[in-house]
């Protein structure tokens, strides 16, 4: 009866796999784009995900943090993460140099509902770091452009310096198959030619067909209700406003309890919630 059994390592949902930092690229003062590849070539090949999902990143000896994937599964190979330096793990990530080892596990969460979005018009609304999970979707849509309808991208940041992916934005601005609208809250350097104001000011003079458009929103926590109010006033039904929300998280697989809101777990049922779900979960937005 005194049997010894070994934990099934392959089935360990908490098992981080070694990955290497391939390159890092500073996007703004406190925000950097990191590109990782799994150490094990099989793992690197097998790993796929949906736009809007996230991974748990471990920095050896420091800890683990949930981070949205910013790359698109249509361009396999590297896993790109946009990270702002705000805490212990993100600080340590910023100190890593190329070829450094990290632990990765995932992908987790529901992601953007690609099947529902096909053949629909899309309004992508990003604020600040909110571009991270939306860049994944945006590049997915651009790589399958014929499968989606009209595309509008509205992106706001605190200052022109805080706009992420400026080189990519320049390319987007030159395309004729989408409308790119940018705004900054303030322009301290006086070099900004575009609109000054919060992201909702970009709606001015724009027409949407709320019955065939999905609004895809990721903005700072305080801004969700303002964006939702604008969309609701324009006739968007709650289930056509999709929001990527954040919560403090530990395990990523619905066990630790941290990201629980109402009867949902942000890690399992989110991070993408419809506005309808969000207003029915007390304290969600």
């Amino acid at each position, binding site marked *: *009866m*005194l*049997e*010894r*059994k*070994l*934990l*099934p*390592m392959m*089935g*360990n*949902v*908490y*098992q*981080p*796999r*070694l990955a290497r930092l391939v390159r890092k690229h500073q996007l703004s003062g406190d925000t950097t784009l990191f590109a990782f590849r799994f150490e094990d070539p099989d793992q690197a090949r097998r790993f796929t995900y949906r736009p809007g999902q996230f991974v748990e990143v*471990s920095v*050896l*000896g*420091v*800890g*683990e*943090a949930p981070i949205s994937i910013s790359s698109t599964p249509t361009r396999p190979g590297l896993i790109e993460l946009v990270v702002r330096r*705000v*805490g*212990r793990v*993100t600080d340590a990530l910023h100190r890593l140099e190329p070829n450094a*080892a990290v*632990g990765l596990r995932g992908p987790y969460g529901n992601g953007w509902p690609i099947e529902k979005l096909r053949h629909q018009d899309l309004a992508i609304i990003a604020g600040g770091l909110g571009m991270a999970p939306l860049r994944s979707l945006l590049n997915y849509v651009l790589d399958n452009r014929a499968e989606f309808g009209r595309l509008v991208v509205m992106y706001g940041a605190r200052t022109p310096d805080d706009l992420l992916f400026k080189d990519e934005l320049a390319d987007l601005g030159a395309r004729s198959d989408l409308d790119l609208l940018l705004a900054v809250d303030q322009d301290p350097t006086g070099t900004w030619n575009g609109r000054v104001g919060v992201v909702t000011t970009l709606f001015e003079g724009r027409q949407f067909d709320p019955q065939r458009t999905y609004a895809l929103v990721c903005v700072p*926590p305080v801004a969700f209700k303002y964006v939702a109010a604008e969309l609701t006033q324009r006739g968007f039904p709650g289930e056509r406003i999709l929001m990527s929300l*954040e*919560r*403090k998280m*530990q*395990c990523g*697989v*619905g*066990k*630790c*309890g*941290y990201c*629980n809101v*109402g*009867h949902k777990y942000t890690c*399992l049922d989110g991070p993408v919630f419809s506005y309808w779900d969000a207003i029915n979960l*007390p*304290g969600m937005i």
Partner: protein
Amino acid sequence: MNAYKLPEDHLSPFLLRLGSQAEVYAPERQASGEVIFARLTDPARVVTEYTRTTLPLKKFFSLPSEVMFRFSVDRGYEVPEEIASVHRRVIFGAHACDLHALQILDRTFLHDQPDPYYAQRRESTALIGLSCTPDELCFCNSFGTGFVSDGYDLFFAAVPGGFFVQIGTTRGNDLIGMAKDLFAPADEADLLAYRRYLKEHNGKFTREVTTSALPGILELETGSALWGEAADRCLGCGSCSMVCPTCYCFSVSDRLDLSLKTGERRRTWDSCLFKEYATVAGGHNFRPGRDARLRQRLFHKFVDFPARFERYACVGCGRCTAACPAGIDFVALIKDLRREASA
């Protein structure tokens, strides 16, 4: 009914027999008067009549603090062998409410993507239930958890002269099989004694809380001043979570060894009552008020967990109220909220 009778003086030899085959844990009374599940040393120390252990059974399956991985730059994250291997265990003396609570924990830990640490300990641990001795804080009957019909390998109900023993699983049957000489098949008189036990036991529970429409009542009372009144007394110490048989939250932290080259990832019981619990990097707290944190804990038990898993995450063991250093009576709070909602 496939049942047995174990005479009172056969309990010690049975526990010793189990001890020769597995790690055995049983309730023992401490000098402080508290009863805890302890590793069996002397069967004479085992108590068969007690109200509640300080910590529930969860301490055997989701440990208060445990190493999940050892890590190093060269080898990455590995489950240490001493963690990965688990001895066969038998826990004797689990009350009905605590057995129900494990089934509630199963819904989280074994559902969807199973937690391998919990799953393996659960699988390698036999459970022997025992009839209980309720006090004025027990309200298990309100949640239908004063009795069990599954979730145990064996269940011992105290009847005059010994125990009426029911078999729940083939593993339970095997446990009896290795001590067949100590048990006797239950006869008519034993069945009569068991019938009497059921009737008497049912009458021992005095505290009740009305569970009908409880989620709706609490939702109506989200803004009640009663939350604030309780929160004013709450110390935010998390004792109620630690002793709760269905609270399962944990946090994960990494520690480096002195070499700075290797270290361990550890998880530790946590509580939604702690201020830092919902604080994200950058300082934003999604539940900044103590009233919001207290409400989160009770809503999780009575509104949100049932919405997801179709049963209340409370078994009425009374530990939270018994453990609260500020004297918050959680059952009284729920009753007051209902009274307010129907006023």
